């Protein structure tokens, strides 16, 4: 059944080609040390990790609720959670401006208090969270659905508190899905561009994440842009691979 690997060529060869092209140019190492690259890399790291934490903190309770209780409007909430995934990222950026922008519904009050959200690093995190959190919530919901509620009930009848039951029964059993959701969310946040450039803008050190740096570098020289792209590809691949390496895939008990 090895022929099924064929689509992998389509997914991987273009990225590999960039890496090869950049390495062949011989200027990769000097680009690695340039301030534009290190600043963007650092900013991407900080913002995507914050986004991930926010998504997990805010998304886990929501995912658990959606998995365990059917309430009026359940399907609506489900659809709303998925909506940011479907909406074009630039539209998401405009939507965030409509709320948090200087003339926004919330933003105008925040501005009065001296808090301007647009064009800040916070805006980058908000944009990333908006587009990426739904991935975690979806995966977490599926993960919790896969845990037999009977196990939780047995635990509570044995006198274990709800919180402890969640921590010791539900969480470990749902963990593979949760971690998978974390990876998806982090990856989406890492690649986020449209909403970021719309809502947070593009300024080195403050809002210029890796994708924005690559896009900006395209204007000055392709070589710089390719070098940045290579770094992003290698860094992302490294993290994804490490994640797979250190989490045993307990997803399919029949495999």
């Amino acid at each position, binding site marked *: 059944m090895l022929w099924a690997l064929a689509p992998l060529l389509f997914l991987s060869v273009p990225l590999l080609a960039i890496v090869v092209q950049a390495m062949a140019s011989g200027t990769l190492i000097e680009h690695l040390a340039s301030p534009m690259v290190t600043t963007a890399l650092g900013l991407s790291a900080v913002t995507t990790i914050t986004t991930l934490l926010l998504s997990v903190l805010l998304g886990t309770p929501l995912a658990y609720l959606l998995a365990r209780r059917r309430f009026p409007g359940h399907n609506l909430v489900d659809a709303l959670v998925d909506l940011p995934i479907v909406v074009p990222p630039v539209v998401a950026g405009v939507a965030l*401006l409509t709320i948090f*922008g*200087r*003339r926004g519904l919330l933003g105008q009050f925040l501005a009065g208090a001296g808090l*301007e959200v*647009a*064009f800040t690093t916070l805006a980058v995190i908000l944009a990333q969270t908006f587009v990426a959190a739904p991935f975690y919530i979806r995966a977490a919901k599926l993960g919790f659905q896969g845990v037999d509620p009977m196990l939780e009930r047995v635990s509570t009848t044995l006198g274990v508190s709800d919180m402890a039951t969640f921590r010791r029964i539900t969480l470990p059993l749902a963990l593979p899905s949760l971690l998978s959701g974390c990876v998806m969310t982090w990856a989406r946040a890492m690649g986020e561009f449209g909403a970021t*450039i719309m809502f*947070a*803008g*593009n*300024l080195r050190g*403050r*809002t210029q994440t890796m994708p924005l740096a690559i*896009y*900006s570098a*395209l*204007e*000055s020289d*392709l070589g710089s842009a390719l070098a940045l792209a290579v770094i992003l590809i290698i860094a992302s691949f490294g993290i994804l691979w490490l994640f797979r390496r250190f989490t045993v895939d307990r997803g*399919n*008990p*029949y495999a």
Partner: protein
Amino acid sequence: MLTRGEGWRHKPLGARFQVMVFAALLLAACSVSTNKEGGASDDATSKELTVFAAASLTAPLEELGREFTRLHPSVKMTFNFAGSDRLRMQLEQGARADVFASANELEMLKAKAGGLLASSPQVFARNRLVLITPRDNPGNVNRLQDLARSGLKLITTGKNTPVGAYTFQALEKMGEDPLFGADFKELVLANVVSEETNVKAIVGKVQMGEADAGIVYASDVTPGLKPKVETIPIPDRYNAIAIYPIAALSTAQFPAVASQFIDYILSDPGQAILAGHNFIRSR
């Protein structure tokens, strides 16, 4: 998705059906791509002219395109508007187009150096810079000197995009005047909160009220934009005059039509349309 654990009651979609669906999609994809090429070669009555033009040319070129199509009904015009540096980059990477109109001579020179041009560039328009602020002027910017005030939110493009390069020039000229101070340019640049990729993005953010001010082309203050912004003119002695060259490309599918379009832009009616959009005529 069904797993063995949940009970495998239904047969999965037959392999034959899946192959049919795949084949149908492939066929549809192929017909989309062959349509374009088929239309160019075997249908003599439909000629598609692809124009890569600076973002600031959006309004006038669309009108020029409409007029040109009225005079030559067999021509279908397609425009790609973006920062001139980005367009030149796309052409260098193999994008196919018939005409390139840039907002500065530098990008046209780069295109020429890359062997992309089929003819010598001709200057077809000029432009000036103006300062715009949102209508309610949240940053209280009333004179050019105000741009150096700390805490303002200014939007520019990168210095590789023509309008950004012209802005740099203008700021430098201002800095040479004691009215502004020698560190004027540095102070203004310290207020920049975002570097966009083309001038229309600056217009957008100022219009939305997200930025306090931005420097754009005089032509960008369209009748539609006028009521939404305050426009502060920049005196000629500080201003940068933008020069717009146009040329036919070596990848042009219909070089004769490309030439005709350029001639039309350089003709009196064409120049009048440009003037109507607040550009400065070159002829």
